[in-house]
Structure formats: C-alpha cells, structure tokens
C-alpha cells in the first residue's frame, strides 16, 4: 500500500501511468472478485486500455457475457436507475462530502459555543460577543438548564421518597442561602479568572452593590424563580 497521497488527476508521466495502471487494475479485479464471493452475487468488469488491444475482463469472457445478457434482460428503467458514469459518480461524491461538511460545521459550532458558555460562566466578558454567539449561547444555556432542572427534580424526588417527608419551602430557602454563600467560596477557589484573590470578599460585595445588583432586582419583576431571590438575600443583607 502506498504511503504518499496521490493527486487525483491524469498521470502525465508515461511509465508512472503504466505502472499505476497495472497495479490498480489488478487491485480492482481482486475487489470485484471479493465482492462477488462475499455477497454471493453476479458481477463483471471490463477494462479497455491503450496497453492492450483486447480488454481485460472479469471473471472471464464467458462469465462477462452471461452477466451482460442478464443485464440486458432487465427493463430499461431498472438498468439505468443505478447507472453512473464518472460525472454523475463524482457529483454524487461531492454532494455527500458537502453534507458531511455541513454536519461537521454544525457539530463544531456547538462544541465551540459550549466552550464559550463555560468561559462566560466563569467570568469571561460578554461585551465583545456578537448577536449570533449570544443567541446560540442563550439557547445552549436553556438546554442545559432543562437538563439540570430535570435532574434536580429527579434527585429531590428520590430523596423525598427515601426520607418519606415532604420538603418544606422554608427549609429549602435557608439551606440554599448557605449553599449560595458556599458557592461563592467554591468559585473563588476554582476560578481561573482575573480577580485578585485578596480582593475577594470586598470585590464581590462591591461589584454587586454597585450596579449589577440593580439589574438583578429589576429582573425579579418578570416573576423569575426563587433562585434569584436568594441572591439579593446573600449580597444585600
């Protein structure tokens, strides 16, 4: 098997072309033979070349005639339905490759946006992002939230069944407030952002009290979930 990548164009060097022809023709005949045996089907191959006045034929002259007769017995439409030539075959390959490319683009886009989302989750600025990225990211965040809520519900349900007790809303809020304080801690520890660790407590209190807090409060008016309510409790005692 060759290691070099072959350029898919007519080989202009005569001896190279002849050598390639010999090798590849042999390989082609082998492939036809294998296909026939493995799948138990009839087939034939006919190759005309400038190197031989007679065509090379698989399986042999007789076998080829038999298959051709079988072929001609079929209705015209059946014959041409799956008939291709170089042009149509290559076009078909181009279409398939184009579809493959489209899918890869889409998948890679999702991977990129996922990465971006996690970066923004841990402090990357949204300022420089375009509408398309924001929209895509928003959608992805929604998808993730769906999954998260689903799993939270599942876990709480399982826990509830196990404990045999209904969770009281008040208890949840208290526990959550502590968790919220904790999470600030955890993100501090793990965050790779550019906040000065020593500024931590103050920086947090500072930025939220400054203006971001206003935003959060205003958003509450939309009737958002109680998680947002936790925020104001934690950072605006």
């Amino acid at each position: 098997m060759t290691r070099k990548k072959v350029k898919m164009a007519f080989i202009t060097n005569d001896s190279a072309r002849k050598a390639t022809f010999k090798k590849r023709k042999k390989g082609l005949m082998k492939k036809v033979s294998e296909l026939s045996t493995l799948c138990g089907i009839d087939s034939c191959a006919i190759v005309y070349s400038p190197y031989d006045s007679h065509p090379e034929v698989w399986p042999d002259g007789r076998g080829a005639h038999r298959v051709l007769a079988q072929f001609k017995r079929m209705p015209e439409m059946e014959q041409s339905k799956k008939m291709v030539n170089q042009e149509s075959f290559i076009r078909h390959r181009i279409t398939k490759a184009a579809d493959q490319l489209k899918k890869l683009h889409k998948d890679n886009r999702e991977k990129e946006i996922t990465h971006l989302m996690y970066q923004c989750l841990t402090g990357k600025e949204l300022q420089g992002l375009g509408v398309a990225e924001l929209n895509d990211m928003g959608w992805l965040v929604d998808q993730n939230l769906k999954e998260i809520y689903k799993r939270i519900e599942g876990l709480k349900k399982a826990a509830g069944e196990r404990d045999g007790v209904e969770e009281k809303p008040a208890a949840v809020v208290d526990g959550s407030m502590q968790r919220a304080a904790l999470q600030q801690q955890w993100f501090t520890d793990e965050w790779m952002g550019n906040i000065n660790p020593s500024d931590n407590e103050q920086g947090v209190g500072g930025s939220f009290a400054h203006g971001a807090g206003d935003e959060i409060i205003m958003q509450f008016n939309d009737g958002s979930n109680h998680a947002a309510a936790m925020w104001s409790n934690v950072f605006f005692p």
Partner: protein
Amino acid sequence: MAKKPSMGRQKIKIEKIEVKNHLQVTFSKRRSGLFKKASELCTLCGVEIAIIVFSPAGKVFSFGHPNVESIIDRFLARSTGPNSHDPFYLVEAQRNASVRELNLQLGQIINEVEVERKRGENLDNMRKTNESHYWWEAPVSKLGLDELEQLRDAMEELKKNVTQHANKLMNPSSVFVPNRASGVFDQYESKPSHGIVSSSHVNAAVNSNFGYCHGFF
C-alpha cells in the same frame, strides 16, 4: 486516548457471508468502494471501464466511463479499439474536461472535511481535559444535588446576562451604549432567537456599564 468510533480494519475470510445484515452492509460499502476505485483508475490512467454488479436483492448497479452502454456495445461487438473519428469524440473531450473540474472540486471539499474533522477532534480533547479539571463542566448526570443547584443558579445568571446583551445589540437605539465602535453590528446573522430575547422588559438605560457577566462576582 480518544475512543475509536469503529473497530477499524478487520481481516475477513473471503467466503459468502452468512449473516444477512452483514452481507447487505458489506455489499453496500464494498460496491461503493469498488466504483470509487474504478473512477480513480479512469482518472489517473485515462482508461475506459464498465462494471456491472447485481445486488443481493436483485437490483443492478453499474459504473461506466465514458458510459456503460458504449463499453458494453464495444465489448459485445468485439471491436477492439476506440474510434477517434467518432463524431462524439469532441463531446467526450468536453466531458473529460468537466470530469477534471469535478475531481478538483471533490478534492477541495474532501480537504475541507478533513480540516473540520480535525478541528472537532481538538475541541473534543479540550472538552475532555476541562471536564476532568472543573466540576461544573462535567455532564449533568454526574453531579450531586448541591452542585446542580449551584450550577443552576450560575446558568440562570448567565442566561439573564446573555439576554440583556443580546437585547442591547438588537435594539441599539433604546440603549445608551458608551462605545458603539465595537463592530458588533457586523455580526448580525439570521438565526431564530429561540425565544430567549423577548422576555425581559428591563429598562435598558440602567444596563449601560454593568452588563458584564462575572460569574458569581
């Protein structure tokens, strides 16, 4: 090492495949590969070929260059040489030119596919590395209740900020944006908004400088 998508090349014995499903899959793949090899042989060496294959279901597939019928006729008539005085010779010359172009186009797009595939692989590797370092990047199914609730809150916060920013960009006139020279307006692409942008009626003027998402800070 990344998980391999399939088993790769397995050496098989050349005898009739017993399992019908395997047989059909093999036929489909190998027939396609056979035609590809034939096509390449024609391109590389400028030879004329016809291949006829009957499928296990009885349908017939055929590949021919310049075309199946002319090769069959030539073979059955036992004439041995191509006829360059054939009036269709010029047509064929043109056809060869278009085949050349198509091959170039195909080569190009195959390269693009390869580039994109490698990009995907790199992104996958990055994701894998990050998943092992940062708990919040792990799949949701692997997180505990505490972690999930934290993540939920972080995501909700991000969602709000993203919505605000998107609104800002889509309704520039209603927003006091200190620096409009950021070139973001170049990036309008038609993509449906997935319903996230319409929800907030926040007074955008308040957002002027504080639309930054600092995670929990």
